[in-house]
């Protein structure tokens, strides 16, 4: 599998936060969900890929090329959607096209107009008159109008209603039907990823704790439940996000550790939200 995006030992230090040795890769033809709590380092990683932040060390390769040395070439082929717009609010959608299209050799004006029509966006409207959902669709229209091979989306769904989120997932599914393309999709709303993500990269406190297929991640952990007082302290330590309530406990456990648990406990498959929430609850360290 050829990688469309490859990060190796990426490090960036701030006063109160650091991104440590972040490494993962996204093969062509797939959607990768980039998950983590707020402040885990998702946006920092994306900003490093886009050269908005300067890395301290490590390497970033996009389409097999260094993202800084070949910046112009690389950016021609990347479509970006951030969590808030970065266009002049006074522009209408025609002004926007006139301003950004000269930067792309492959800008397709017909596609831009078709996408605006598909998204029910009026070209004469000012950007400041658009709703949050419409602004996200506008960023997607721009990202898709220059024949991008890699889409990088940073929390595009936060603040969107369920219908708009569903539409976005459809757009991504359509986009990825071309096996030479790829999507890196950062979000903390993991339900968005259940439908579309082939790979998941999970970042916590600036460190990658998992990067692989979604199925493997979901198979790796189980939600475990049981009555009060059935666990030995050593067993309790194996549980992530251990929570006690009036009739018992629940938590998350690595599937391979299930044999260490008493027979009386019950377990069930977990979802991405369980993993995200439990790891944020403290208790066990997450290895």
């Amino acid at each position, binding site marked *: 599998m050829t990688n469309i995006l490859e990060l190796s030992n990426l490090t960036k230090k701030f006063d109160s936060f650091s991104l440590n040795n972040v490494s993962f890769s996204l093969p062509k033809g797939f959607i990768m969900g980039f998950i983590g709590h707020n402040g885990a380092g998702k946006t920092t990683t994306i*900003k490093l890929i*886009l*050269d*908005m*932040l*300067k890395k301290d060390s490590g390497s970033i390769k996009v389409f097999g090329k260094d993202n800084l040395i070949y*910046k*112009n*070439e690389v*950016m*021609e082929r*990347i479509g*970006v959607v*951030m969590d*808030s*717009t*970065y*266009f*002049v*609010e*006074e*522009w209408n959608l025609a*002004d926007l096209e*006139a*301003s*950004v299209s*000269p*930067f*792309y050799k492959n800008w397709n004006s017909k596609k831009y107009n078709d996408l605006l029509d598909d998204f029910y966006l009026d070209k004469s409207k000012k950007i400041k008159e658009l709703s949050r959902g419409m602004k996200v669709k506008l960023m997607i229209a721009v990202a898709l109008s220059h024949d991008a091979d890699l889409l990088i989306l940073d929390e595009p769904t936060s603040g969107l209603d369920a219908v708009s989120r569903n539409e976005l997932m459809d757009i991504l599914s359509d986009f990825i039907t071309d096996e030479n393309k790829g999507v890196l999709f950062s979000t903390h709303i993991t339900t968005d990823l259940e439908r579309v993500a082939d790979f998941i990269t999970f970042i916590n406190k600036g460190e990658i704790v998992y990067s692989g297929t979604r199925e493997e991640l979901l198979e790796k952990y189980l939600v475990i439940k049981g009555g009060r007082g059935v666990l030995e302290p050593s067993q309790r330590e194996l549980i992530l996000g251990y929570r006690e309530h009036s009739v018992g406990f629940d938590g998350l456990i690595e599937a391979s550790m299930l044999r260490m648990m008493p027979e009386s406990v019950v377990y069930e498959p977990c979802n991405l939200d369980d993993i995200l929430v439990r790891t944020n609850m403290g208790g066990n360290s997450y290895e």
Partner: protein
Amino acid sequence: MNRILSFVKLDYAALKPYIKSIYMFVVIVVFMGLVNDSISLMFTMVMVGLPMILTYPFAISEKNNLDTLYSTLSLDRKDVVVGRYAFVLINEIIAILVLVIVAIIKSNFKPLDMSSEELVLYVCILSMFFSFIVSFQYPILFKLGYSKAKLYTYIPMMIIFFLIGLFPSIVQRLNLNIDLEAVGHMIFTNLVPISLLTFSLGIIFLVLSALISMKIYEKKDI
């Protein structure tokens, strides 16, 4: 080169929110130039007003998160800086052309208060001051952004007005025997080289300033 020109075009497009106040400024300058006896007033207004207008792209950029836009485009950071300085030069040239055209139109109705050689010298000196002001402002604007840098952008104009105001007393206090008449004579007998020198100094200011801005913007976290 294409990217830099595209960036200049983007800067002009970004000025849309301020376009009315810019037109208003141009109308007032031209009107004052036509009705006032002295042509120099029009030039001074441009020297003071244009550097302020040229900070608008930073204001708009900050308000609308345009540094992020630049990062998503096929655009090097140095192209952003070079493009912004090219935007300055283009505006300076447009301003000079407008001023000269107004002066020519005015001269058809009424004799100007300076000869054409003096006019060229005047334009070159103002251009040097203008370049000095912008050269001071831009690296700070690139470093701090518009809101934080706004106060500092007034400093070069204050320096210029302060020095002009204090010049006679400095001369007196230091007991300098400057023969202003001789200086004036020297200038007016060497109009072409002095015009070239002042214009070149302005360009040197801008080039040095652009190099500093490039270093600043290259390192900046957006």
